[in-house]
């Protein structure tokens, strides 16, 4: 009986340590940025100007012992009417979702499969693409701050921080909370300010899922 109780206690301790370990592994840490000064014209953020980009896309995640993985093609296209579309479909052509931002950057879900049609997921994906493609209303772009290494702008919730490289290139991007704790990390290859990276991993530290993107050249 005593041995059983000890074993039971040990299992609880191991489970507790495992949960703590899992939580720590999900944490994104804090982004070390100085007090950023006011925006100067030489450090700006430009919207993606590419007419079309196709990525191969993989989404991985898990909860406790269960894991999942989805893959397909992600099409980003700028339309003639200045709206932007992001479409995710599987390799055999079935569309998972079709998102639109009109010329005024108003977001709309044009189609989504039932099983993805959840507000929390749509909000997360919307925010990811808005940060990636810089689909910000003009008023947000007027409130940029920079120290020459990072450029930051306020989102409705949290902040987006872009890593600046010389010659108007960008690299990693982060969404952080008010205490600069990373919520989402976009780990990208260097890309021009008016473009998108050729490959990238988007890590959601709280939601514990990640998106891998690799540009496809047809």
């Amino acid at each position: 009986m005593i041995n059983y109780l000890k074993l039971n206690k040990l299992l609880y301790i191991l489970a507790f340590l495992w949960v703590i370990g899992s939580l720590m592994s999900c944490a994104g840490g804090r982004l070390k940025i100085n007090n950023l000064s006011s925006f100067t014209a030489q450090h700006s953020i430009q919207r993606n100007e590419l007419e079309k980009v196709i990525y191969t896309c993989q989404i991985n995640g898990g909860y406790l012992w269960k894991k999942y993985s989805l893959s397909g093609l992600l099409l980003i296209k700028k339309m003639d009417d200045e709206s932007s579309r992001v479409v995710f479909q599987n390799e055999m052509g079935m569309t998972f979702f079709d998102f639109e931002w009109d010329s005024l950057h108003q977001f709309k879900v044009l189609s989504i499969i039932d099983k993805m049609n959840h507000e929390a997921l749509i909000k997360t994906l919307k925010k990811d693409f808005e940060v990636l493609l810089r689909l910000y209303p003009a008023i947000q772009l007027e409130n940029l701050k920079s120290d020459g290494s990072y450029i930051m702008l306020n989102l409705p919730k949290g902040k987006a921080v872009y890593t600046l490289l010389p010659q108007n290139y960008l690299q990693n991007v982060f969404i952080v909370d008010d205490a600069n704790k990373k919520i989402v990390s976009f780990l990208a290859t260097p890309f021009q300010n008016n473009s998108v990276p050729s490959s990238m991993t988007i890590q959601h530290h709280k939601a514990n899922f990640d998106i891998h993107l690799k540009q496809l050249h047809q």
Partner: protein
Amino acid sequence: MTLLIFLTLHFIDIEYIMKYGLGLCLVVKMMLSNSFDMHAQNLNEVFAQQMHKTTSVTSQFKQTKNMKLLKEKITSTGIFYYKKDNKVRIEYQHPYNYLVVLNNGQMYIKDNFGKVNQINTKNSQLLKAVNSIMIDCMNGNILNNKEFNASTTQTDKQYLVHLVPVSAEMKKMYNNIDVVFDKKALHVVQVKMAEISGDETLMEYFDTKTNTAVDDKLFKIK
């Protein structure tokens, strides 16, 4: 929110596999049914006879996804293999690598990033249903599939099978699916899947060979 996103994506995965499985069944059916009798009452018999004769199929394919509203076409190419019994390999080779192997209830998927997923289709009710449809594809009963209403037409050179979804699940995805057979060779040459959104996926098959030697290693689930 974390839990919600997990749950959402977890069930997407099952849904994805299920729908994907149904899609595969169609492809298998199309590739195997290299003879077609326009009289519905004889169709199952002809199909079953043909299944008995066919031990393997190999074919090149070209897939074109036509996104009408986006005015965009995405094209990919690859090789399709079937070997009796219950073995299928669909290998996308350009412009991305994507591999699906079906072997006796096991599904193996390797995506463009090299990530492998292996699924036992017997471990869930949904996948069991998919598996039973796959078996129907193999034994010639797929034409009795209650998911579609079938009608047929023909030209000098081709047979056309027009499939309209019946079940609510399939109706959410497709308006119709058209399968075109070459009359002389009795091979499937084209499959066009028209989605509810207006988009279309066209599969074109060429260089089809039947009853040639196909290595079992191609269907190995690692």
